[in-house]
């Protein structure tokens, strides 16, 4: 299951990334395997996600969220 499949208010634990380039970028921002992710809001017909990672908030595209695999 990947992050984009979560509905609003649902959460999951990050397992791994499908894409190494994105992984480098996300991990540098502190989004790591084991992080708790919650989808707070989906906008733009579900193409833009507002997520919470621990105490941080991120805006992320659906295509990017699809590379984040959850437990």
């Amino acid at each position, binding site marked *: 299951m990947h992050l984009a499949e979560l509905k609003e208010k649902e959460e999951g634990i990050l397992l791994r990334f499908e894409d*190494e380039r994105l992984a480098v*970028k996300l991990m540098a921002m502190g989004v790591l395997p084991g992080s708790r992710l919650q989808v707070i809001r989906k906008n733009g017909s579900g193409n833009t996600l507002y997520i919470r990672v621990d105490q941080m908030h991120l805006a992320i595209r659906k295509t*990017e969220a699809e590379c984040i695999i959850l437990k």
Partner: protein
Amino acid sequence: MKVALLGNPNSGKTSVFNKLTGLRQKVGNFPGVTVDIKTGKLQMGKSLDVDLIDLPGTYSLFPHSKDERIVVNTLCNPGDENFPDAIVYVANSAQLEKHLLLFTQLLDLNIPIVLALNMADVAEGKGMKIDNARLSKEFQTPVLSVNARTGDGIDRLKVVLEEMLFHGVQAGGFKGFRSFYALSAEEESMAEVAGETTGVKNLYQGLLIAHHHSWLTFLEEWTRETLHGALENRNFPLLHYQVRETMDRFDKLGPMLKRSVLRPKDQPLSRTEFADGILTHRFWGPIIFFVLMFLVFQAIFIGASYPMDWIEQLFSGLGHWVQTTLPDSWFVDLLVKGILAGLGGILVFIPQIAILFFLISILEEVGYMARAVFLFDNLMSRFGLNGRSIVALISGGACAVPAIMSTRTISNWKERLITIMVTPLISCSARIPVYALLIGFAIPSIPVLGIFNLQGIAFMGLYLLGITAALGAALVFKLILRSGERSFLLMELPDYKPPQLRNIGYAVYEKVKTFTLEAGKIILAISIVLWVLADFGPGKKMAQAEAEARVVAVQNQLDEAATADLIAAHQIEGSYAGYLGKFIEPVIRPLGFDWKIGIALITSFAAREVFVGTMATIYSIGSESDEFAIRDRLAQEKNPVTGKPVYNMATALSLLIFYVFAMQCMSTIAVVRRETHSWKWPIIQFVFMSGLAYLGSLLTFQVVSAF
């Protein structure tokens, strides 16, 4: 001595920079690239000469955007002119776990570093307790709390920095260098190859050079090839090692922070999330955004009108004074009609730009702009743009010059280029005087639905036309331009916080300065060129024109002022500008323009706002060149052949459309050239915008005339 300021985006780095340097800062350029570099003088105890360099905010030394690459390029090259003797690392205390990755990478570069924990009060408010002494022991480097808002800890930071710069880290009781990250055997061997080929001593610097050899600017071609070969031989997948290193650093960092940072278990729902429940709502979010933007523009028009009037009056008064005080000569003429008029033309835009950036900076400081990006990313990406483009497009409403410069935060080259290409289609403040003059002429001021005015609606319509054209052009560029680069949104939405007046003040100051210097010098130069074009003619044409006019004036028994008007009108026809206008007349006649408008169009290709002044000169009402005087004069103008008015509704509308689309700003062209590193893009932009303007005007004039 050089000190670099580093930190993640949203760490409050800029506030710390402003607090440390005050007004002793200047903006320059990184050598070879177009990214701005801010440097300031650090006033140390013994009045030492220390430069503080504000490096772009970045999350790690594995960068993705052009700005972030600057950081690696500077720190990997000990020969770089900005290579620091010490680093001040700013971290947001409330996000400490996430903000220390870059710090651990910097530790491994073996450059003296001090960790400044910013916003400690916010962290405390969240119930966090940070043990600075413990952290200092863990990292073997000074750690202290600062508050860029109140200035607490800033003096202490300077003392610590001074100690470190002049007595070394060991003097503070710290052990010598030991690396945070233990390189694997493969990484070490790769780092050594990089060290041998570049002469870099530090092992981690070597590893970074190996990682980034494909784009580091200071590497020579043979170095690049050697490193590339070595990587191939060793089967060293770069991204894989970057992921591994990042993981390893966080694994090490976790327990260290557990020992020194106390976090309450239950975190209350943050106020930020509560506010975003409305502000990023899929329905209310965009509405609030547009209401905010509407208020911003209202504030510009209302707030700027008085200071603009004062500036105009000041310069016309000054010109009058010079003309009456000094003896009549070509030099006085140049001073009044060229230099003073040009300076006035530059300064008159400062109130608008200051107000726009004041308000936009507030929205940025508060954290709202990131939400705007979130709200519009989906829409913008359909047009080949990025959520961040919305900021540039809105700023383009004031002036395309700073707007185009603001696209630097877009890391994807294609999206950035498209934003640069279409931003000048957004109606900027320089079009306002032209719009005002022509709308006042062509559209009657009648109420609509009781509360609106038809002229206001026309104004709005022109803005919307500009926006539509920008998005349409973006779509075309999206289809034409090819790019292998991947587009990211991935952006932190920082917690909302009250704005800091100091930061906003500096931002406004910087933007106004940029406009005055970047666009100002061109406007001034063009103003002088214009004066030459309008005041001089081939051969004895000018003298002949004056003699002719005098004869006509005597015949019609005109008074002194009317005689002067008539002379000027005859002279401009005989001037170089008149010849140019007549030369292009056949091309612009299908748009409803005569040679006089032709002159104004030519002068406007330098800067749009020149149009109004040129029209005043052409009709020699420079002494009373306010909007209404010009408008009345235009209404009287008759076609000498047909006897019909030259400026009818069709001509005015056609001109309006022309000004919406045409690329009539040399300052913008100069900035686009600077930002894209080539003449190719500004030329393409000039051609497509002028083509659009010509076709749009042609269609408008022909259709409106037919009715």
